[in-house]
Each structure stands twice: as structure tokens, then as C-alpha cells.
């Protein structure tokens, strides 16, 4: 019995990280601070001010979401996938990132983009149908959002492999949903990440639904367990608890930076709104379910904790409302600032270098447009 496959490594060596069946929580739904000997140290710097900032973040992105949804209803946007309910999962994890880390997300991570400094116009551009993407990924350390379910998990893994080969201690974070865990790409990303000890954090927002499909159709057990099978520590955290999400993400990032490889975090949360503005969730889920999740609201519990800690919550909420109002105004202003694209820009950026066939096609189409008033311009 000489081959390595004969001797399973000690699966319990990573301590906390190997308990996917636990459900980590630092703030209860009613706002009590629970203490956890292993998690606490990752957020010991989070004082009242920091907590207040997280509350502000979440309040603002919730408003951002409401406003964008309204803009869609008013015909200003073609589509919007609301994040409502997932503020803690996104803010808690994104606030754990360093500038030189890189986030690879799906389409719903508006709060991550917000944290990464993406401005209102850049956030809305795509959803208005005015552009193929919103921002320069290298300016924000955040990739172009991904619509093909799960594909970005491999991109994050490749990026992380590269960072490691360079000796950098930067890490990648791959955001994806519960549904995505069924796609080959996500599983292959786990294979590659494990094999190459890639500094990547898989952040799965289990929001209970993939459009109309409940998470139970994708997996018969907690998704954090999936990682274990690939030799990757899986953590199950209350995704509506911004502090617990931040703590686990920091812990996982730290692990990545120390060269210890990937971690999988299942942030258990809930999509409060429709899948997108085109979806009608009444067709597949009931009001009671929604109501039970409303009691686990990610913002309300932080407010309660702040209140219990003696913070002036009214001032806090006033500030949040002001900031949110400003954001809403910015969004509306941004919409009008997004110019409709030039007709001939359809041909831009297909290739980085000249492509004879496409140039000819562009030229022909220019002539075609020139027949009409205004022409190609």
C-alpha cells in the first residue's frame, strides 16, 4: 500500500473549516450578539462604528435595489435581478476583500459592485441594454458579471492559480448561487482549486431558489457539504448575518493568502424578490415562506444590535435614509447620462486586432446606413 491514494489525509486538520453541518451565526435574527470562540477573532476590529458602516452599506444597497426595480417598472431598464434579502451575504463578504483581490460574480451581486466602487451609471448600463458591460474590471478588482450559470467559478480559480504562481498573496472570490452548484463548471472549479491549492474563496449564496426550483432539487443536503467531497473545507454560515459572513470570508481569505488553498462558504440566505423583474414568484412559492424569512431580515438585526449596544439608531436611520436618497437621485441622474450606443459600435471590440472579414462587414453596414437620413452616425 504505497500509493498516496491509500492514505487519506487527516480530514479534521483544518479545525472549524471542516464542519459544514454547523450553521455559524454571530448575530441572531432578533439582534443578539452570539459569541463564537473561533469566529469572533475575525471580527474583533468591528466596533460600533464599523457595524454602523455595515448597516449603512446594507441600507443603501437595499434602496439601490428598490430604485433599480422601480426604474425597470418605469421602462428605464430592460431587466433587473433584485438582490433584496441578500445584502448581508454580499456586503459581509465584499467588505472582507482587499483592493488587489478579485471578485468574479454572477448577475445579482450589485452590492459587491457597490462595495468595489462601481458607480451608478456603470451599474445600470447593462440592464438598460445600452452596453455589454458596465465597468473596467481592472479598475474595480471585479470581473464582468456572468450570466452563464457557474462559469465564473472556473475563471476565479484560474485567476487564483495565476496569482499563486506569481507569489502574490491576493485571492479570488467566486460568487454563485445554489442552482449553480449543479453545473459542471462549478464542480470542475472545485477540482482545479483543490489540485492547485488555488487561493480562491467559493462564496455560494444559497438563496433557496434557482428561479422556480427550490434548492432541494439541486442538493439533498447542505451545499457546504459539497466542498468536503473535493477535499475543500466547507463552511455553512447564516447569510443574513453580516458579521458572520464577514468573519468566515476573512478567515477563508486568510487561509488562501497563507497558501492553504480554497474554501467553500455556503451563505444561507433568501431572495426576497422575484428572480428578475420578468419573474412571477407567486407561481412557485407561498406567502408564509416569505414571511418567515422577513423575520430573519439582515438589516433589522443589525439595527437591533446597534440599538441594544446603545447606538443612536434614529440618527443612524436618518443618515441611512439621506445616503439612500442621494444614491437614488444619483441612479436617476445616471440613467439619463447613459447615452444610447452608436450604431456602428456593434462592431467594436469583437477582436482586439484587425479582422479582415469583420472590417469588410462593418464597411458594408456603414454604406447601408448611409443610405438613410443621418447615416451611420
Amino acid at each position, binding site marked *: 500500500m504505497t500509493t498516496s491514494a491509500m492514505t487519506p489525509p487527516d480530514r479534521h486538520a483544518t479545525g472549524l473549516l471542516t464542519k459544514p453541518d454547523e450553521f455559524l451565526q454571530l448575530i441572531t435574527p432578533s439582534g443578539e450578539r452570539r459569541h463564537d470562540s473561533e469566529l469572533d477573532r475575525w471580527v474583533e476590529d468591528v466596533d460600533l462604528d464599523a457595524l454602523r458602516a455595515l448597516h449603512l452599506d446594507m441600507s443603501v444597497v437595499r434602496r439601490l435595489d428598490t430604485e433599480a426595480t422601480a426604474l425597470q417598472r418605469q421602462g428605464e431598464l*430592460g*431587466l433587473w435581478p433584485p438582490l433584496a434579502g441578500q445584502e448581508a451575504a454580499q456586503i459581509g463578504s465584499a467588505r472582507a476583500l482587499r483592493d488587489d483581490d478579485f471578485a468574479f460574480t454572477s*448577475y445579482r451581486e450589485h452590492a459587491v459592485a457597490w462595495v468595489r466602487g462601481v458607480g451608478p451609471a456603470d451599474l445600470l448600463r*447593462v*440592464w*438598460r*441594454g*445600452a*452596453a*455589454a458591460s458596465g465597468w473596467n474590471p481592472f479598475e474595480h478588482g471585479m470581473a464582468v458579471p456572468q*450570466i*452563464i*450559470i457557474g462559469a465564473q467559478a472556473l475563471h476565479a480559480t484560474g485567476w487564483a492559480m495565476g496569482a499563486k504562481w506569481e507569489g502574490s498573496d491576493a485571492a479570488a472570490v467566486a460568487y454563485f448561487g445554489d*442552482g*449553480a452548484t*449543479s*453545473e*459542471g*463548471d462549478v464542480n470542475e472549479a472545485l477540482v482545479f482549486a483543490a489540485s492547485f491549492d488555488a487561493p480562491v474563496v467559493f462564496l455560494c449564496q444559497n438563496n433557496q431558489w*434557482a*428561479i*422556480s*426550483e427550490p434548492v432541494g*432539487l*439541486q442538493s439533498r443536503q447542505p451545499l457546504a457539504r459539497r466542498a468536503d467531497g473535493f477535499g475543500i473545507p466547507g463552511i455553512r454560515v447564516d447569510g443574513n448575518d453580516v458579521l458572520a459572513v464577514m468573519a468566515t470570508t476573512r478567515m477563508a481569505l486568510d487561509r488562501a493568502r497563507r497558501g492553504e488553498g480554497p474554501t467553500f462558504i455556503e451563505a444561507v440566505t433568501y431572495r426576497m424578490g422575484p428572480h428578475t423583474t*420578468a*419573474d412571477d414568484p407567486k*407561481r*412557485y412559492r407561498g406567502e408564509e415562506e416569505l414571511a418567515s424569512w422577513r423575520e430573519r431580515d439582515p438589516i433589522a438585526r443589525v439595527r437591533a444590535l446597534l440599538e441594544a449596544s446603545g447606538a443612536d439608531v434614529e440618527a443612524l436611520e436618518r443618515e441611512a435614509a439621506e445616503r439612500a436618497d442621494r444614491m437614488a437621485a444619483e441612479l436617476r441622474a445616471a440613467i439619463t447620462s447613459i447615452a*444610447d*450606443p452608436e*450604431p*456602428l*459600435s*456593434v*462592431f467594436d471590440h*469583437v477582436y482586439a486586432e484587425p479582422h479582415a*472579414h*469583420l472590417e469588410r*462587414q*462593418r464597411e*458594408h*453596414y456603414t*454604406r*447601408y446606413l*448611409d*443610405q438613410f437620413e443621418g447615416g451611420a452616425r
Partner: protein
Amino acid sequence: MTALTLGGALNAGLRRSLAGDDRVVLLGEDIGTLGGVFRITDGLKAEFGAHRVVDTPLSEAGIIGTAVGLAYRGYRPVVEIQFDGFIYPGFDQIVAQVAKLHYRSRGNVRMPITIRVPFGGGIGAAEHHSESPEAYFAHTAGLRVVACSDAADAYVMIQQAIASDDPVLFFEPKRRYHVKGEVDESASLADAKPLGVASVVASGTDVTLVTYGALVQTARDAAIAAQDDGVSIEVIDLRSLSPMDLTTVASSVRRTGRLVIAHEAGQQVGLGAEIAASITERCFEFLEAAPVRVTGHDIPYPPAKLERHHLPDLDRILDGVDRALGRPNSLSGVEA
């Protein structure tokens, strides 16, 4: 005759196939409880049960691959791919398994799998929701590829596809889902036009215009518009993309001497190339001008606000017709 939308006709056709053969099973993402994002399978799970209309995990390779296993077991799986741009994760199972298993097994294993794909643009959608991937499949031996264009055809063709012992890629023109047409729900499949045959949907004498899917309506509109200009266009709805009914196209071109092909997919190595090449082979002596292709550009599908600058529309088709006829057109005076 009943007036049904194209989507409603598909729903009715699926219902009839499910009722008529208990080996027919539907598989896909969100097709059960939700009835599909386009509601094409609306009500079918309630009517036939969760083992006949199956919500699957989110994995296209998984859906197609398990459909192959079900076909091995004697089922006739009907798979829904939610949008055109999501078929690629299942590409290997389609090209290396579904298409090849009958050949590989020397005829022992049949793959009567229907893969339904809402395709094409014009609905202002996000990326990956407006693609036209039919050329990939028409190039793949072992597959049949069809595209319906109206409610009556949709109703019949979906049943024929399911009844076929070969795998069929079934393309549905999503932007026409809501267009109504008269459907004869009582008609027998035996009397219907076979799946591989094209339809001359408008007669004409000056130029033959071949298309399929959503552009059939646009082509008909173009034919009507051209009449005012004294140009008589014969419009052919190809219906089947593999095999193509080149006999019908060729006999039209032998009369008109001119051919225009329109599709939303990119031009390079697209269906238009095949039709142009095949018809040139068959009708070289009859052609009075080179076949003209009016297609989407060779670009990734653009953002919604630009799609009208990508998709062939009535004006671009008529410009192509002018080119075929040697009338003034956008490329007049341009060296070929």
C-alpha cells in the same frame, strides 16, 4: 380550427404527444411548476405528473445526458433548453452522444430526443438570450434540425419531432411566441406536411427569398412591401435546416434566377453559406446573379439597444433583394 399563439400551439402539441405516448417525458429547468420561463409547458406537470414533466437540476449536460440514458431505456425525452445561449454546456452530450449513438451502435440504439430551443433575438433581452446557434447543429451529422415559424406549423412540427426516431433540434422563434394563428387541433399527423419539407409561403417570380424562424414573417412583409415597387418575391420558409429541402428552393430559383437568404445568425459559415453554395451547385446555369446573404453580423449578440443594428429587418432584406436584382442598393458601385 382554433386561434392559438405559437407558444400555445407548442403547448397543445406537447400535450397531445404526452397524452398519446407514455414514453414521452419532458425534462428541463423550470418547466414543471413554473411551466417554463415562456410558459410553453404551462399546466403539463399538473396534468401528467412529475415523472412526465420533470424539473431538473440546473445543468444542461445533465439534462441532455440523462435524456440519452432515458432513450436507452426506451423513452422519448423532450428537453427544453431555457434560452439559446444556454445550450453550449450541453454541447458535448449533443454532438458526441445524441448525434452519434445511432451510428455508433450500428442502428441498435435510437435517440428519439427532441431538444427544444427558444432562439433568436428582437426581444430586448440580456446577453445569451437572443442567439441563433442553429448552424452548429446543422453541421453536425446525425441530428435533424428544424425551425417553426407560425402556430400551425409549431403544433404539427413539435409532434412530428417527438415522433421521429432521430434526434431533433427544435428551434422556436421566441419573439413570435405570442403571434396567433389558426391551428387545426384535430388534424392527423399522417396528413401533415413531412418534417423535412419547405413551404412556399408567398409566390413570386423575380427573386427567391429563403428564410426560417422569426424572419419568415419579416420576409412575408418584405414581399408585400416589394409589390409596391413592382418586385415579385417568392418567400420560402425552409422549416427544416437539416436536411434542407433544396429541391423546393432550387425549383423556385430555376424560375426566378435570383436568390436571397436571410437569417439572424452570423454570416460566416452559417446556413446562408450552405444554401448559397448548394443552390449554386444545382442552379448555376439559371442564376442571374450571385446569391445574396442578409444575416446578422459576425459579432457576439449585441446589447439590446443595438440589436436593431444587428438583426436583418425588412429594409435590410429589401436591400438584399435589390442587390440580387441588380437594382440600386447599399453596395452599388462597391467592388465585390
